[in-house]
């Protein structure tokens, strides 16, 4: 999440969901929290009940809007403009938190000469290379101005090139009127939201911003998050109770999957994946040139960074990296062989999911393991993804049910002859969550253990079981090999064998004898001191001499003792505003990150009401209700000397310790690939011209141009309607887990399209009737849900219609329906290769397709043993609904 990473230092939500209850105002935007995260939403609701204002800004009036005090409808994809309007209003009306901004952000820092803002470059920042469609990383045009070895500062904020003035100029044209015309709302809406945020921020009050996939799935998603970060920094809401930016993740452990990444360009703990470049050929050169943070985000900026990158927490990179290599390669990793650095795969290009599937479509991938993923319905341009699957030699699918990506070769209604599909598909049944041990790392970085309750039925096994045994077999295969290329597998530590047979919670022996010991995996991630094998309690204990092993430095501390799994702790006790004994939050069980900012530069809480941690002069340390995100004994008055390195280079009043300058970045000199400041670009498929810049769309977005991935023209009159995709509470993702459950299916049984009565009238579409939605990629048919919750917007004097498409259906399951992702396009943003499913253009008509492509539902599974008594259970203890027409007999 470079949006947050570049702004604050770590790419994760800055706070935790429960903390929303401490907010005085919660802005939910790009998120339908009540529907997609109903359990977390309770805290937002609690805040409302305590008198906070709840604001929802969204193209659709959703169940979240129903709970909000203020709702603003905007055009999908216009979020940067709306947020820019708020920034403009805060700056022009002097509503920002002066002391916070001056000390804790880089507002006073002067940017190097040669920087060109989008304002002057027609929507392009300095350094854009039209031939590659990228900003030139080495041009250094976004860097700070260096004076005397440190970034130049102007505490008066008057320097024309200081960040504050740049910000002001950059957002000068984002006036409420202009923004309203872009977004289709009224100027008063922009002012209302800005005022609410401003009035509920400052010393005494804090506001929080919540976002989710509604911001990330855009070609400008990272910049939307950056805009929110700028607002929160200007209002002084980061690092304080009830403040922050809450990133709501789309999957239950997606945070975990970026922490211990399934990403191609990161190693566990956000260490950069080494690349195939001469500068990273050896461990030493990797540590020297990879430069932790900046390389992790694949961006390198101007001279300041070359010189000073060893400031901040990333100076510890060698300790993290060497400990990781020791965890992976064990005794084989030694100083002499670079701790096995050479065995790490080196990155040679874009291997993100979408890029890989495009290569698969083009024939560049032969085999695929698909574990808990359903690209045939869930990925953008689903037909492209299905074509990619059809191009494989072999495919292994592990899941609970035979979903679209497993049965595409015969169940896809567009397939005429299954014999012509060459892909050999292996479907392996997977265990579900209560059938296996493991952890979830949720959106607030909270590592939570879940216990296995029962054995999975039949041949279902945990994914860990599959990976573990696959690994064992691979190691067996290469055991005798003397080839150098096989060393990575031969030297990999791979022992998660159980010491004792597995037992279920009721004490009985598990039927499955060979499940790996998941706690051993978590212990390896936590790390040990190798001299005595003791578990590490903190990543401060990590060493770069090979004496510690740690699978992910950020998780260090989750298993501090051999018998103490903190992810498993379940003490709900609340300490002021946090609950430190409920599971474990990385890093170091910190609940609110950058919490040094909850105290003023001198270390005193900004206010009694919003205190979190503070400097205690007697004890000479930081104390409070949370684990300080700061060196505990560093006084507020500390100032680094000229030669200071690492954490010593961070001043006592600089809360953002992951950044080399310790400040929150209003202006991001590095870390973001499409500009140091957010600029409004239209979605790739937009119904209107960019009103602010000549540059219509994000200049750095990647289009996967192809026959199967056609895109609409610029402001294409053939596709005049804005479409957005979304989730319903009743289903999950593309439905592989929910569409096989009749309890959920009866709640939302059919694919529908939400549209306004005005659009329905215009196109003769009837409520509950059939309608067709088409984009250049394809067309789908679905039921029409005509509702006033969708309202037409006025953009530049004309009426613009929007429609909403739930993403939950496909051709597998008890209920079948059109796949919304048949309409979406495969285009990706430059930072995280995220696609743009939340804003695209389409056309609609009444009626059905000539050839329906909904598919055949599988019969709904009867609830097991509905009328049979449960063996060994007295009649009165059986579930009430276990209807038994012969209930009298055989009573217990």
């Amino acid at each position: 999440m470079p949006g947050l990473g570049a702004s604050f230092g770590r790419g994760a939500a800055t706070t935790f969901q429960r903390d929303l209850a401490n907010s005085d105002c919660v802005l939910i935007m790009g998120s339908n929290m009540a529907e997609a995260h109903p359990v977390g939403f309770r805290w937002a609701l609690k805040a409302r009940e305590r008198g906070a204002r709840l604001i929802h800004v969204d193209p659709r009036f959703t169940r979240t809007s129903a709970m909000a005090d203020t709702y603003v409808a905007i055009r999908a994809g216009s979020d940067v403009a709306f947020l820019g309007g708020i920034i403009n209003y805060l700056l022009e009306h002097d509503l920002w938190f002066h002391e916070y901004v001056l000390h804790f952000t880089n507002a006073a820092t002067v940017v190097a000469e040669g920087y060109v803002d989008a304002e002057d470059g027609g929507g392009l920042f300095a350094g854009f290379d039209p031939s590659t469609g990228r900003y030139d990383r080495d041009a250094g045009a976004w860097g700070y101005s260096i004076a005397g070895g440190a970034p130049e500062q102007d505490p008066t904020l008057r320097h024309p090139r200081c960040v504050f003035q740049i910000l002001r100029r950059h957002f000068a044209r984002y006036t409420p009127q202009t923004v309203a015309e872009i977004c289709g709302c009224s100027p008063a809406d922009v002012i209302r939201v800005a005022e609410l945020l401003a009035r509920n921020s400052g010393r005494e009050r804090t506001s929080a911003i919540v976002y989710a996939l509604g911001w990330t799935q855009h070609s400008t998603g990272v910049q939307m998050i950056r805009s929110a970060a700028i607002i929160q920094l200007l209002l002084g809401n980061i690092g304080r109770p009830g403040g922050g930016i809450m990133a709501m993740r789309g999957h239950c452990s997606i945070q975990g999957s970026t922490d211990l990444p399934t990403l191609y360009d990161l190693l566990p703990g956000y260490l950069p994946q080494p690349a195939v470049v001469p500068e990273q050929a050896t461990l030493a050169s990797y540590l020297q040139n990879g430069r932790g943070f900046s390389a992790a985000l694949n961006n390198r900026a101007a001279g300041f960074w070359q010189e000073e990158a060893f400031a901040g927490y990333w100076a510890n990179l060698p300790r993290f990296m060497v400990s990781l290599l020791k965890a992976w390669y064990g005794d084989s990793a030694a100083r002499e062989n670079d701790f096995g650095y050479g065995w790490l795969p080196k990155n040679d290009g874009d291997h993100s999911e979408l890029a890989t599937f495009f290569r698969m479509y083009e024939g560049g991938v032969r085999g695929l393991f698909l574990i808990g993923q359903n690209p045939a319905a869930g990925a953008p341009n689903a037909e492209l993804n299905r074509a990619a699957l059809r191009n494989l030699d072999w495919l292994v699918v592990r899941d609970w049910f035979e979903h679209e990506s497993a049965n595409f070769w015969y169940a896809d209604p567009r397939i005429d002859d299954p014999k012509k599909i060459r892909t050999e598909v292996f479907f392996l049944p997977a265990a579900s969550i209560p059938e296996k041990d493991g952890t979830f790392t949720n959106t607030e970085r909270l590592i939570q253990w879940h216990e296995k309750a029962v054995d999975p039925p039949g041949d279902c096994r945990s994914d860990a079981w599959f990976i573990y045994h696959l690994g064992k077999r691979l190691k067996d295969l290469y055991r005798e090999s003397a080839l150098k290329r096989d060393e990575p597998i031969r030297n990999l530590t791979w022992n998660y064998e159980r010491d004792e047979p597995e037992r279920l919670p009721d004490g009985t022996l598990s039927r499955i004898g060979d499940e790996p010991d998941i706690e051993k995996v978590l212990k390896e991630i936590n790390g040990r001191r190798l001299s005595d094998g003791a578990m590490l309690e903190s990543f401060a204990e990590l060493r770069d001499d090979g004496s510690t092993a740690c699978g992910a430095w950020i998780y260090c501390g989750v298993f501090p003792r051999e018998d103490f799994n903190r992810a498993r702790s379940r003490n709900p006790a609340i300490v002021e505003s946090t609950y430190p004994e409920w599971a474990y939050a990385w890093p170091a069980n910190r609940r609110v990150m950058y919490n040094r900012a909850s105290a003023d530069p001198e270390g005193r809480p900004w206010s009694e009401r919003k205190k979190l941690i503070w400097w205690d002069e007697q004890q000479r340390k930081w104390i409070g209700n949370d684990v300080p995100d700061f060196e505990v004994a560093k006084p507020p008055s500390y100032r680094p000397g000229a030669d200071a390195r690492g954490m010593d280079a961070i001043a006592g009043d600089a809360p953002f310790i992951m950044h080399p300058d310790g400040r929150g970045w209003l202006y991001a000199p590095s870390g973001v690939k499409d500009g140091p400041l957010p600029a409004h670009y239209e979605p790739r498929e937009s119904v209107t011209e960019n009103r602010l810049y000549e540059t219509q769309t994000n200049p750095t977005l990647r289009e996967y141009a192809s026959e199967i991935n056609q895109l609409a023209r610029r402001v294409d009159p053939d596709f005049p309607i804005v479409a957005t995709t979304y989730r319903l509470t009743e289903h999950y993702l593309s439905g592989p887990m929910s569409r096989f459950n009749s309890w959920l299916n009866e709640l939302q049984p059919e694919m529908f399209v939400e549209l306004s009565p005005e659009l329905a009238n215009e196109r003769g579409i009837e409520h509950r009737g059939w309608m067709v939605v088409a984009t250049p990629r394809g067309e789908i048919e679905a039921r029409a849900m005509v509702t006033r919750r969708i309202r037409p917007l006025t953009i530049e004097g004309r009426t613009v219609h929007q429609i909403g498409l739930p993403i939950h259906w496909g051709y597998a399951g008890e209920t079948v329906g059109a796949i919304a992702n048949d309409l979406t396009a495969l285009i990706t943003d430059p930072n995280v290769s995220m696609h743009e499913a939340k804003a695209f253009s389409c056309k609609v008509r009444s009626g059905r397709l000539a050839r329906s492509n909904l598919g055949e539902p599988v019969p709904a599974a009867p609830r097991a043993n509905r009328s049979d008594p449960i063996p060994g259970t007295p009649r009165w203890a059986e579930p009430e609904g276990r209807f038994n027409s012969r209930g009298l007999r055989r009573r217990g």
Partner: protein
Amino acid sequence: MGILADLFYPFRRPAQPPARPATGFFTDTTLCIGCKACEVACKQWNQLPSDGFNFTGDSYDNTQALSGTTWRHVVFVEQFPQPQKTESGFAPEALDIEALLAEPPAGRWLMMSDVCKHCGIAPCEIACPTGALIVNEFSNIYVQNDICNGCGYCVAACPFGVIARSPLDGHAHKCTLCYDRQRDDMPPACAKACPTGSIQFGPIDELRVRAHARLEELDARGVSGAYLYGDSPSASYSALNAFFLLIDKPDRYGLPNDPERPQLHLRGDYLRAAFGTLAALAVIAASLMSHVF
């Protein structure tokens, strides 16, 4: 053997469990986010089958009503005015920020999780000719599955349309207030699953106090039109042990505005029936005794 046992089984009267404090639900619709977790939790705990997959287009309400196999049902009511044209000639200087912030939202989407009302005086329980419907030790109205013979009179008696006869077994079913869970000191599945505290379970006295406090709280927050439905008895109906906090008229949520206890006129009805009987008898007797014939 079996047949004999079946014949005598219903006449056995096991000892009644001692009374416990009356429990009930307080459903606060201002906190309901329409997630339907209550519906699913109820079906899952009680092992109730789905009622079929019917897209209704009635907002997000596809289960439509309580039934013999749906014991919690979330009602969705969309209330949106005709959209107005956005104002032209916006003048930021003339803007009254205070008025702007106080402006109420233009539309609303009401949600309510409906359930058996567990009436203080329950018509279904009074009507039941078998005694299958009982007031259990928690003062909840409970159908004894093994006694009910499916006569359907409770269905006719319920003014809320709650209880229904399931075609699966021919017996009447409705919310049990998770009697089985209560006996194990656990809250009902729906209340447990509700993420926002819209469904609150507890001793009914406590709930009523809580509900009144909640009303005051809402009043202080400026929420207009909030009131309690079924909190106290009306002229024609008892108080409900599962009562609601609503912000619009009851019938907007599918509740009767003014429920009436069906047995309210029972004595009079019996008398009128007797009167009719006597009248008919008089005609017959007079004719038979007449010497005209």
